[in-house]
């Protein structure tokens, strides 16, 4: 009777792992890590009932279980499907999955304004990462993009409904973290929008966390808005004695100035511990915090680009990009092959200091 429940053996892209019963395919893949982990735009392990909506984490189940080896007829959302013993899952090894995921990325970007150059989320945006990783070069959409009227939802949080991908994370956050949810989904179909009833401001003590859970730039921090780019600021872990929350936060600093305070996120971009509005919006002095040390952000490579550890950029310590980022950067576009403006014989990295017009003079 006192037997421990037997672990389930699941094979994802030919890599086997044993996980406890009740684990979802996505979480099993996260235990393996690396490329076999399906991307997730709406699933959030800390929020109950989240997931299943964005369809980016679709996988093919080629063998249901040891007992019932039939494959599942459709692609399944890995974030909400629990593993069975002997299950075999195909993620990147399945053409169907790769194709479906390309389609989902195209659908997600269909009405997205692509205003990354003016978006505060740029650099730490899940949708950016997703489209680099799984998207196509161009959209086939030729119509006017859908837009929404701007809505003011209070002094601290700015809502850009045009950028929203309807992941429902902020709704679950407000449901599960605060006493009373003041925002929700209005309308349906492609005009469904995050909104508040009668323009109420979001004022709960913990509502600032919706900024952290938002995978895109739909919900951003008004106190940080347009002040700086995330890759110019340096993230450090810090803590303070807070009467309402754990006080463990991440400061985004430039010099001695604290530009932004967010919760600490793990390697899947999920908040480790929720922080309160007071810590997030009002404690913007370095003296408010006890700095622990630089944060390691393996996820959004662009943030680590301008990293400060070890005097990056000087001749003594060359930039080892693969060590800083943790993986080889991908060249998405070789500009020399399509442009006459940049001349391949001029190697920019050979030029000392910033490039000048003199460097490009024809000899």
């Amino acid at each position: 009777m006192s037997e421990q429940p037997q672990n389930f053996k699941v094979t994802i892209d030919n890599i086997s792992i044993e996980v406890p019963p009740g684990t979802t395919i996505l979480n099993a893949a996260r235990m393996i890590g690396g490329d076999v982990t399906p991307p997730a735009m709406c699933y959030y392990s800390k929020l109950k009932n989240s997931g299943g909506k964005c369809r980016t984490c679709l996988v093919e189940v080629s063998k249901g279980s040891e007992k019932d080896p039939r494959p599942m007829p459709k692609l399944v959302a890995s974030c909400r499907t629990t593993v069975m013993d002997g299950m075999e899952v195909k993620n990147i090894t399945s053409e169907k999955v790769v194709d479906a995921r390309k389609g989902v990325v195209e659908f997600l970007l269909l009405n997205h304004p692509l205003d990354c150059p003016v978006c505060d989320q740029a650099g730490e945006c899940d949708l950016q990462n997703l489209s680099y990783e799984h998207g196509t070069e161009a959209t086939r959409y030729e119509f006017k993009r859908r837009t929404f009227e701007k809505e003011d939802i209070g002094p601290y949080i700015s809502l850009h409904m045009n950028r929203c991908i309807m992941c429902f994370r902020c709704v679950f956050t407000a449901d599960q973290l605060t006493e009373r949810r003041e925002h929700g989904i209005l309308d349906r179909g492609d005009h469904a929008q995050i909104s508040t009833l009668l323009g109420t401001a979001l004022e709960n003590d913990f509502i600032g966390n919706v900024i952290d859970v938002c995978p895109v730039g739909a919900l951003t921090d008004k106190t940080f808005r347009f002040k700086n780019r995330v890759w110019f600021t340096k993230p450090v872990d810090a803590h303070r004695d807070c009467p309402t929350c754990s006080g463990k936060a991440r400061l985004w600093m430039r010099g001695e100035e604290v530009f932004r305070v967010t919760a600490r996120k793990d390697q899947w971009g999920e908040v480790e511990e929720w922080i309160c509005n007071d810590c997030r919006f009002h404690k913007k002095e370095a003296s408010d915090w006890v700095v622990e040390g630089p944060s390691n952000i393996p996820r959004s490579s662009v943030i680590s680009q301008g990293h400060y550890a070890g005097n990056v950029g000087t001749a003594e310590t060359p930039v080892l990009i693969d060590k800083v980022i943790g993986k080889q950067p991908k060249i998405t576009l070789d500009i020399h092959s399509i442009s006459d403006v940049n001349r391949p014989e001029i190697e920019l990295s050979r030029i000392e200091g910033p490039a000048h017009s003199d460097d490009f003079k024809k000899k």
Partner: protein
Amino acid sequence: MAVKLLLANDHVEGIRYYDTYRKHGGYTTAEKAFKMSPADIVEEVKKSGLRGRGGAGFPTGMKWSFLAKPEGVPRHLVCNADESEPGTFKDRYLMEFHPHLFIEGLLISSYALGSNATYIYIRGEYAWIPDILEQAIAEAKNHGWLGKNILGSGFDCEIYVHRGAGAYICGEETALIESLEGKRGNPRLKPPFPAIQGVWMRPTVVNNVETLAAVVPIIAMGGDEYAKIGVGRSTGTKLLSVCGNVNKPGVYEIDMTCSVEEFIYSDEYCGGIPKGRKLKACIPGGSSVPIVPANLLLKTAKGETRYMNYESLSDGGFATGTMMGSGGFIVLDDAQCVVRHTMTLARFYTHESCGQCSPCREGTGWMYKILKNIEYGKGKMSDIDLLWDIQRRIEGNTICPLGDAAAWPVAAAIRHFRDEFEWHVLNPDESQKRNYGLAHYADPIHVPAGA
């Protein structure tokens, strides 16, 4: 003469009132059912081979036997009267003219499933029907058919009518449950299935109006007797609501043995195509099922006669066949434009998508915009392939079947009527002047690309 079970007393004046219904043998089946045990009733329904009449055609007896029965947890029966599929209006007819037959079916099913509180979720657009149902429920209650200790059996049952707010998506069973609970009508992810966790996390069975009404003749005549009507796994009778270009549109009860040709052209049913026009295409089961051209409708790809039943209509899969669906039989004659028709359907699905999962939310609107361009003479040849690609990426990748329902009509229209789309693209001016495309689909020579 075909067998009539549900509409047997259709000609009786005032059958919607209790006294008349009782005089014509109403509620005698309920008396019989209360002498049986609930398990026996489920067994009879299983034996009858009754398949869900809402569209999917899932065996009802099997659905009932899946219902979890944990101790101390109430179970519920929910009737899906949110009949929003374009072209389908059979449940409306049943509820409007035979409310007592429907309530008797609900009562027997509630007894069989042990549901003390049974709900009818009716669509908001049927504004006048809740009054009819509530009146019928009150009459039944006054005569002791509802309430506490029915017929001294110790079984309590109340039936509540719940009005929806007019969303197509709430006809999907989990969205219906969410809506019934008072939430936004978004479909839930399955599993858990409603039979385990449905309304208020209690075991729930969701059935269509016609399915529940069919329980009455099943119990009256016995499951084996019922199974003798019809062919193969398509047992019993089915209501079909016919609309479009036929002489006699309306609701018909068929016993699934007549051929499609007989159904369209015989005077007993639709009575042929008006104004001497030819049959071009047909959607045999409500707007979501694939459209088929005339030659594939009357005969299967193998050259056999197609009959009006679940198996025969879906013969050949989606390449050359279609589905029985919910029974919304839409007939198009050779003056109808398939492009325009497909655009209308795409507009409907765009409007009714709940916006929860991305392929359906974004894809349906995209398909509608492209179809609008083609219809109004602004289309490109590449748009047709693009449409095909979009529907392919929506189908099967969504939470609920609305994505499939939006993708199938577009897929079938392109599969069978591709040259009509091309004609629209190549002749933009002419397609504006006369609102129909090519008319040769009625000829038997046409061989579709998917065959």
